[in-house]
């Protein structure tokens, strides 16, 4: 079949649906017919009945009113109080009469309407009859009305003698009217019976036809579903067969894609799936191969790792021992540093004392310098005084020289004078002696003066030197001061440095503790690593086994 399964099923369902709908529609139609008949009966017949009842009631009222009129007039006539106004009553009676006419018109109209609209011929003719009767009734009413009017006239005029005859006539008319009404009632009742019979027959007809239609629909539905099912399940079974083979592991075959419906599509997709499964199987096979290779590599590496872990444990031991040694030396350093710090404190104190001493020395040097300068001053003034001595000496020397010259000249004169000059020569020689003495004295004084000057120079030089020495002493004292300060500074720095060393050693200690802890952790970690390596080995073996299983699982696929 070329139609797709979905469409087929859809067609089958729509067929069944349409049959059902048709059946339903048919039922509904029949139902409406029945309903029509029923309503026809209930509405019109009962309406008619109600109208007739209304008219009877109305007539009763009117007759009562007519009686009242008579009574009221009689009362009036007898001049007795307590009666109603007869005219008023008459008015009322007229109103009632009009209402009766209207009612009859209504009944006529209703009967006409029913006759027109009646679905049944019989009922239509019946209503025609009724209409006839109604018309007769209307006539009777008219007569009755007229007669009542006459009666009222008689009553109003007080013509009581004619009233009795009229009353008998009225009774007759009333009887006629009543008979008509009764005939109508009867007709209505017959109508109802007719209606009932007709309804029953309609119902029977409907029932049978509906049953037949139902049977036909059921039969059609069953047939079509059978056809559809056959067209679906057959190929489906064949397909299931093919799928079963694939499930067994035969990936070599392909499903026939001859059909163009959903099964054909399914076959196509299934073929794709088979192809995919084939790919997967191939890949899985390849993967298991590589997995096996990898697991064997993992096994090898885990063995290596196990060896490495034992080495690691040995290294951890060594490191632990080394750390303990270092830690010990660290505490020793700390001790030493503390000692050094206290020694540095002492040195610093000594340095301060040294500074004091240097300060004293500097002051002393200053004093010495001042003294030396004073000495130099004195010596210089002394030198200046010797200068005046020198001038005096120069004068004396001059005198000596002059004397010498004088002596010389005297000797020359004496020589020139010859013999007479002999005595003068003595004088001349005396003068010469004196001159020589003076000269000698001046020479001596000169020498001594020279010595004094030399001595003064020496003193000045020595003083200068002393000042220089004092200066240099001061400089050295300053240098010493500097050195001591620097030393103090260095010592302070050293103290700080040692304090830092102590702190560092403490830090180091903490660090070592941490390192020791870390090494312990490493030891634990390496233990764990060893354990996990074993587990890894186990896991690798498991994986290997799984790989083997996988291979076996994939083997069953024929590709």
């Amino acid at each position, binding site marked *: 079949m070329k139609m797709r399964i979905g469409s087929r099923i859809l067609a089958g369902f729509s067929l069944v649906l349409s049959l059902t709908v048709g059946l339903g529609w048919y039922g509904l139609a029949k139902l409406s017919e029945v309903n029509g008949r029923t309503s026809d009966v209930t509405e019109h017949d009962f309406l008619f009945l109600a109208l007739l009842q209304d008219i009877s009631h109305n007539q009763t009222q009117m007759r009562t009113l007519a009686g009242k009129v008579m009574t009221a007039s009689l009362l009036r006539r007898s001049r007795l109080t307590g009666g109603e106004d007869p005219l008023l009553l008459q008015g009322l009676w007229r109103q009632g009469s009009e209402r009766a006419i209207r009612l009859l018109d209504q009944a006529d109209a209703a009967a006409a309407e029913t006759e027109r609209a009646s679905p049944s011929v019989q009922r239509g003719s019946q209503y025609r009859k009724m209409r006839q009767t109604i018309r007769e009734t209307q006539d009777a009413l008219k007569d009755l009305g007229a007669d009542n009017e006459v009666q009222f006239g008689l009553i109003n005029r007080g013509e009581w003698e004619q009233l009795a005859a009229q009353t008998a006539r009225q009774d007759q008319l009333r009887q006629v009217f009543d008979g008509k009404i009764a005939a109508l009632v009867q007709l209505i009742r017959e109508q109802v019976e007719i209606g009932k019979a007709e309804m029953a027959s309609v119902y029977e007809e409907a029932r049978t036809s509906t049953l037949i239609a139902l049977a036909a629909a059921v039969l059609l539905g069953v047939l079509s579903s059978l056809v559809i099912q056959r067209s679906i399940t057959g190929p489906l079974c064949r397909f299931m067969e093919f799928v079963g083979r694939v499930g067994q592991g035969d990936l070599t075959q392909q499903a026939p894609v001859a059909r163009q419906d959903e099964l054909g599509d399914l076959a196509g997709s299934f073929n794709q799936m088979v192809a995919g499964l084939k790919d997967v199987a191939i890949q899985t096979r390849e993967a298991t191969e590589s997995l096996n290779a990898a697991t064997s590599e993992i096994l090898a590496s885990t063995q290596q790792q196990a060896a490495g872990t034992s080495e690691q444990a040995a290294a951890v031991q060594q490191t632990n021992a080394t750390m303990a040694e270092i830690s010990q030396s660290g505490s020793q350093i700390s001790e030493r540093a503390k000692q050094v710090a206290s020694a540095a404190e002492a040195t610093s104190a000594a340095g301060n004392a040294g500074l004091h001493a240097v300060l004293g020395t500097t002051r002393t040097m200053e004093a010495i310098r001042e003294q030396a300068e004073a000495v130099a001053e004195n010596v210089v003034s002394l030198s200046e005084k010797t200068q005046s001595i020198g001038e005096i000496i120069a004068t004396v020397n001059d005198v000596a020289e002059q004397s010498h*010259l004088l002596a010389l000249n005297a*000797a*020359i004169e*004496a*020589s*020139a004078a*010859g013999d007479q000059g*002999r005595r003068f*020569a*003595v004088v001349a020689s005396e003068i010469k002696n004196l001159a020589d003495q003076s000269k000698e004295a001046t020479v001596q004084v000169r020498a001594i003066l020279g010595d004094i000057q030399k001595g003064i120079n020496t003193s000045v030089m020595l003083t200068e030197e002393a000042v220089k020495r004092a200066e240099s002493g001061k400089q050295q004292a300053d240098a010493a001061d500097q050195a001591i300060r620097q030393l103090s500074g260095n010592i302070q720095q050293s103290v700080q440095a040692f304090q830092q060393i102590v702190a560092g050693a403490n830090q180091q200690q903490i660090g070592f503790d941490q390192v020791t802890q870390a090494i312990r952790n490493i030891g634990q970690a390496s233990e764990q690593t060893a354990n996990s390596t074993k587990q890894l080995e186990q896991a690798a073996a498991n994986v290997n086994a799984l790989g083997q299983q996988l291979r076996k699982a994939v083997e069953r696929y024929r590709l």
Partner: protein
Amino acid sequence: MSAAIKPVDWGRIHERMRQSQVELRNGLADDPRHVQKIYRLRAARLARPEVPLASAAAESSILVFLVNSERYAVELQQIIEVIAHPNITFLPGSPRELCGVINVRGEIRPVWDTALLLGLAEQTGRPPAYVLLLRRPSRPCGLSVDQVLQIRTPQPTDWQTPSTPSPFAKAITSDLITLLETQALLREEPLG
């Protein structure tokens, strides 16, 4: 400074200073001891026998002087007087050997440069230290000398005749003092 510093003996220094002060005061203030000493010296000198200064051969006394560090001499008889540090006035246009002229007790006398006359050295330009005023036939003239040493009275045995004859050298003593021949020396004076 490893050597031990000697402590200064201020006591001794003060002592020495005090002593010298005393001496000085004594020396300046006519200490009788000094005065007595001097008187004794003077008496001794007075008592000394007379030195016959000009007794023997006064004519052969010479005056020894220095010219350019060489010792020369002139006969004492020829010298009028010795003048020290004269104020010599230079005459422009005068001969080279003429130092200048001096004023001796109102008289103008020429002064000759002995070194140049002797042909010893160049003109120094320095004013001479001493001037020997010589007795000349015409008028006294001066010879410039550097230094006047002494008056000597050499014995005749002391004299030697110079080996090489020189116009200016009269004789030479044993200790190489050249006795100048003033006549020859001053003959060349144009002023006469």
